[in-house]
């Protein structure tokens, strides 16, 4: 079992946008699964536990570190959304041409960063 050959990993291959978007999809997805769901459960639990619990949630999540986590989660969401939509297109068998595939691997994280900025602009401008 231990002697089976393993595929070379991230540190072996020359980096390209396709690799980046692939590992970003996994990192943002599993990051949200671990951190994002914890924040969601904490938020809902604090609401259900009453004003005092909610106030301490607000203090911690409103702190500089808490805001970094929230902005990070929103970036992770939009990045995972865009690379996930890319996967849907590839699931139907489209977008495998070299140039198109490369273009969308670059576009997905860029659009995600713009959506993140747009979301926070809407949140803060209201």
């Amino acid at each position, binding site marked *: 079992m231990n002697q089976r050959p393993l595929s070379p990993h991230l540190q072996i291959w020359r980096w390209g946008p396709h690799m980046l978007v692939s590992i970003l999809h996994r990192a943002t997805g599993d990051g949200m699964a671990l951190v994002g769901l914890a924040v969601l*459960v904490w938020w809902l639990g604090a609401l259900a536990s009453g004003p005092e619990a909610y106030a301490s949630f607000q203090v911690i999540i409103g702190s500089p570190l808490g805001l970094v986590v929230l902005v990070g989660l929103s970036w992770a969401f939009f990045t995972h959304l865009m690379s996930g939509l890319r996967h849907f297109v590839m699931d139907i068998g489209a977008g495998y041409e070299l140039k198109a595939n490369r273009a969308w691997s670059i576009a997905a994280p860029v659009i995600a960063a713009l959506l993140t900025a747009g979301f926070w602009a809407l949140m803060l401008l209201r």
Partner: protein
Amino acid sequence: MGNGTSIGRVRGLGASHHGAHQWLVQRTTAIANVVLMSWLLVSFVMLGDFDYANVLKWLSQPVAAVPMMLLVVSLFWHARLGLQMLIEDYVHDSGTKFAVIAALNLAIFGGGAFAIFSVAALAFGGQA
């Protein structure tokens, strides 16, 4: 069921008998996540003020509590499949793999049940 030939194995969907089930559920929960997360983020922008009273007023309405509960189910289900895939890719010892996936399932069902109960408590006006 398969009789050992190639086509038989395909028709029988392999040794676990559910073939692409997880792959498909990952896609269907992903679609639900797109719809429900869009609802959540639009709601956040519309809500503006995140004071206790304001959030309570919003989330205790059926029109917000129901999509929030559905979102919890869809997110936790999708996250479970994603984390299970991560474990299957990087944890190679089969005993450890079984234990980690078992722990994952406990955390997913525990966290999901807690979140849904919390929303229900808000919607029904009780204190959790």
